[in-house]
């Protein structure tokens, strides 16, 4: 509860800014005791972290031999050298990881702050939190878990935000020169950053779901259109790009209020697009960040509205080439544009339309929306759709200028054979260019590298005109949270292992071989009746596929949290619902107390919930933070090969038996449970390797024999299919003969026999001595 008085005359004196807030009015409904760690600070969960890190030791792969963060440096940290401040390479690498995770957490948090502030401004403190009506009683599992409070209104989120901002500040401070000295302590702080990030994402998403009427935990959220081919180019086209949905909502509202909804196409790139379609299913998603250059250059968007996060830094430049006006709306990305926030909308529109200004910074999203719509209405008919993309003749001509110097290829993150494609294109053969379109991440480095000035990315896109036109897919609008009833239904099967796993495809689009692999992996696991969850850019990539009958994956699989489901939870910040679902299994299914009880719940999730995150194109600092949040909850994350550039892995040692014992909560005895899950953070080289890993990483000590047999079945099957052999670690994963998949019995038994395998028991697993019910002989 919260009320405020601006000014009050009392006998005490004149009172200004009286501000009364009541933490909460104790209700009947929430008698849960407060657990040990409400609002945990930097070191509160350090013991849990060190427990995980003892099993999953960081393996550092320095991105550079040097540290360059202070002017004592640069310092060479090769080998066991230390820097001028005394730091060594493991600490320095983990410090960089902490820096990245802190940036990621700060980004989601600042986004959450803007959303909450804006909603408070418009709707007041009493706007209730509603993420799923009666279907969602546990409305904010992560906030409950971490903070130990139960927010009922948007106003209640302020306390959470303040806590998070304190923690981000502390985390960032820990990266200062001469602060943390130990790599494992840096890693513990990385995990803290990840947890903070999860809370921040939850705040952001439950605030926007509550305030803007996004689908509320809706398995049947509408299917919306996705792809460049879906845009009606006859209409004026607005492009919104970024992650903060506020300006997009104001655009959609403005169109609605002015009866223009059907006259203007509102299209989006990145998470703003995702969230916009949660607000209005008639908005269109173009694609992830890798579509920014190609879409801008297509000439289709008539106005660009940028908000924040994952916006190409050359957007203004690229838009200027197309004479597309740009409106910046975030103080975090002012882009060097003049601040027009104080000017009248008409005046700004006039300048943009006349080309007197190439863009404007408008830090008032209502005004920005008005300017965007009025501008697009005026410029769209007037401006020719500039042809930047070369014609077929031009492709050949441009390609003919290639000297085969290979600098393009040597600049390409994916080492694409651009010179070969150019050679072929020069002869009029575009098939290689075509193939490349699918694998290109749209970064544009090739163009900057080309000494001939060939607009390589444009050439690739020009050759792919047909493919682009065929980019007409559907994606289920972000559904938000998982319903309590869904959790109730699948909680048991997941914890027992009978649903073989929950696989979450999250993160960015820095794919090694294009986004199609994400769709293929999603279908692979949905088909095998895993629960497949998607979010953010990965949710888009998962959509970019059609089967022989023209169905997209989201049409092929149901949107509910069930075996064989394919669920898009929403944008980047919706990732909190994935962690939230795992946490809710502990709470709703297993009736564990969530409240400020992080360690116990994480231990539960780690040992029982067969969830795995896949960030196949993880690129950003946010992705680093998101992964860290999963780790602290004990959920392994697989990244694509580019993810090795995050500087370190968290790898278990399957070959070290001593690493893989747990307490049996029943007896307190230490029991060997095998290397499950084997890794906490691992980069896979190929989609095939990732698929096999995911199947394996879904195993948990708590699996029943039936469950383990199902999981082993998928693991062995995938291994045989992709690797050509039975996996060599079967003896480590089979605990009793009953674990063996029926159809593989003889093969597996042979292997077991050869390896000298012997049966061992299945405990009630925990890493925490505090969870032992009967304590005897506990170390």
């Amino acid at each position, binding site marked *: 509860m919260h009320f405020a008085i601006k000014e009050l005359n009392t006998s005490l004196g004149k009172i200004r800014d009286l501000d009364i807030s009541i933490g909460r009015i104790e209700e009947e409904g929430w008698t849960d005791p407060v657990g040990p760690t409400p609002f945990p600070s930097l070191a509160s969960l350090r013991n849990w972290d060190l427990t995980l890190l003892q099993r999953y030791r960081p393996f550092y792969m320095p991105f550079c031999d040097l540290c360059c963060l202070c002017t004592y440096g640069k310092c060479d940290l*090769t080998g066991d050298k230390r820097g001028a401040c005394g730091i060594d390479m493991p600490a320095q690498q983990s410090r960089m990881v902490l820096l990245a995770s802190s940036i990621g957490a700060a980004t989601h948090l600042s986004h959450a702050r803007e959303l909450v502030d804006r909603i408070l401004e418009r709707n007041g403190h009493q706007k209730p939190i509603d993420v799923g009506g009666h279907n969602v009683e546990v409305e904010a599992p992560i906030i409950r878990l971490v903070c130990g409070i139960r927010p009922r209104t948007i106003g209640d989120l302020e306390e959470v935000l303040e806590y998070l901002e304190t923690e981000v500040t502390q985390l960032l401070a820990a990266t200062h020169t001469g602060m943390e000295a130990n790599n494992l302590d840096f890693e513990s702080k990385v995990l803290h950053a990840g947890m903070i990030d999860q809370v921040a994402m939850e705040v952001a998403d439950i605030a926007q779901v509550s305030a803007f009427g996004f689908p509320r935990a809706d398995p049947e959220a509408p299917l919306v259109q996705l792809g460049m081919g879906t845009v009606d180019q006859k209409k004026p086209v607005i492009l919104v790009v970024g992650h903060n949905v506020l300006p997009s909502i104001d655009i959609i509202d403005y169109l609605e209020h002015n009866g223009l909804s059907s006259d203007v196409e509102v299209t989006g790139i990145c998470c703003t697009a995702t969230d916009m379609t949660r607000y209005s299913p008639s908005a269109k998603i173009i694609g992830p960040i890798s579509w920014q250059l190609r879409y801008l250059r297509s000439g289709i968007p008539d106005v660009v509205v940028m908000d924040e996060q994952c916006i190409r830094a050359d957007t203004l430049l690229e838009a200027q080439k197309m004479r597309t006006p740009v409106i910046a709306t975030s103080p975090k990305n002012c882009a060097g544009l003049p601040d027009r926030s104080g000017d009248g909308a008409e005046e700004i529109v006039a300048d943009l339309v006349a080309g007197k200004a190439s863009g404007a910074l408008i830090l008032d999203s209502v005004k920005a929306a008005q300017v965007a719509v009025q501008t697009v209405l005026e410029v769209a008919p007037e401006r020719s759709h500039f042809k930047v993309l070369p014609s077929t003749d031009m492709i050949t001509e441009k390609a003919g200028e290639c000297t085969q110097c290979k600098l393009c290829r040597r600049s390409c993150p994916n*080492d694409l054979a651009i010179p070969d494609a150019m050679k072929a294109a020069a002869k009029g053969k575009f098939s290689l260019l075509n193939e490349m379109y699918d694998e290109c991440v749209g970064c544009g480095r090739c163009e900057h590298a080309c000494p001939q000035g060939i607009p390589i990315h444009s050439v690739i896109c020009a050759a792919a005109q047909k493919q682009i036109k065929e980019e007409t897919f559907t994606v289920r609008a972000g559904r938000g949270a998982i319903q309590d009833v869904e959790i109730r239904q699948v909680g048991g099967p997941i914890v027992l292992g009978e649903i073989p796993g929950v696989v979450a495809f999250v993160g960015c689009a820095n794919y090694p071989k294009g986004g199609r692999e994400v769709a293929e992996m999603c279908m692979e696991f949905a088909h095998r009746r895993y629960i497949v969850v998607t979010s953010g850019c990965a949710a888009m990539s998962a959509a970019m596929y059609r089967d022989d009958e023209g169905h997209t994956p989201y049409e092929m699989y149901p949107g509910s949290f069930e075996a064989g489901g394919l669920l898009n939870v929403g944008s980047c910040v919706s990732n909190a619902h994935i962690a939230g679902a795992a946490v809710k299994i502990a709470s709703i299914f297993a009736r564990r107390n969530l409240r400020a009880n992080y360690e116990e719940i994480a231990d539960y999730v780690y040992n029982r919930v067969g969830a795995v995150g896949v960030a196949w194109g993880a690129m950003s600092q946010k992705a680093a933070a998101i992964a860290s949040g999963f780790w602290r909850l004990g959920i392994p994350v697989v990244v694509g090969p580019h993810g090795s550039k995050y500087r370190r892995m968290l790898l278990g040692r399957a070959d070290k038996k001593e690493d893989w014992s747990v307490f049996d909560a029943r007896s307190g005895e230490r029991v060997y449970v095998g290397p499950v899950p084997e890794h906490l953070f691992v980069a896979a080289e190929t989609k095939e390797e990732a698929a096999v890993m995911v199947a394996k990483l879904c195993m948990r000590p708590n699996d029943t024999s039936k469950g383990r047999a199902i999981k082993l079945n998928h693991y062995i099957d995938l291994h045989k299919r992709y690797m050509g052999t039975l996996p060599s670690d079967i003896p480590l994963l089979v605990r009793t003969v009953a674990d063996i998949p029926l159809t593989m019995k003889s093969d597996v038994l042979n292997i077991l026999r050869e390896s000298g395998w012997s049966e061992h028991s299945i405990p009630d697993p925990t890493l925490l001595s505090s969870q032992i019910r009967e304590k005897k002989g506990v170390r």
Partner: protein
Amino acid sequence: MGSTDPWMIAEVAGPRRASVITKAEVADAIIRRARHPLLIVGSLSAEIEVDDRKLIDYLVLLAQKGGIPVVATAQVGKDLLERDLTPDRQMAAVDIAQRLADPLWKGVDGKGPHDLAMFAGLPYYLTQTVLSGLKHFAPAVKTMTLDNVYHPQASWSLSNLSLRDWVTTLRSIIENLEE
């Protein structure tokens, strides 16, 4: 492109960079000098065309002629099996790298720590990160790459080679080993 510029332009390593193997004999000497070498075969080796064969075919020859244990990353184990070479391990690249960095690890064949790890056919940037991990944290393991591009993070690397020079080099290495 200089012969010792990183293939991916930005993959500058730092003060410590790979020595270039200028002659096949040098590679052979390194292999012969190693007590317990290991060959890590990456996923691209089954795709990269070298002459009329694939890179993997040369690697199989190398392993067989040199009696060198093999780790297959990703799904390349399947391609090795098709060539009648059973890899000693199938492991992720980062996984084998972590193992190599453990001085107490007994090696893929249980015969003790490896002192030389040879890499080929992994994506360039992944080779770099993995080699960097070994360079800093596996002081007892020397690394050598057999790709036709310069890998600064290795102990020894071939230089940036034309396809023809690469074939010649690979053949020489294999032939010399037979002697």
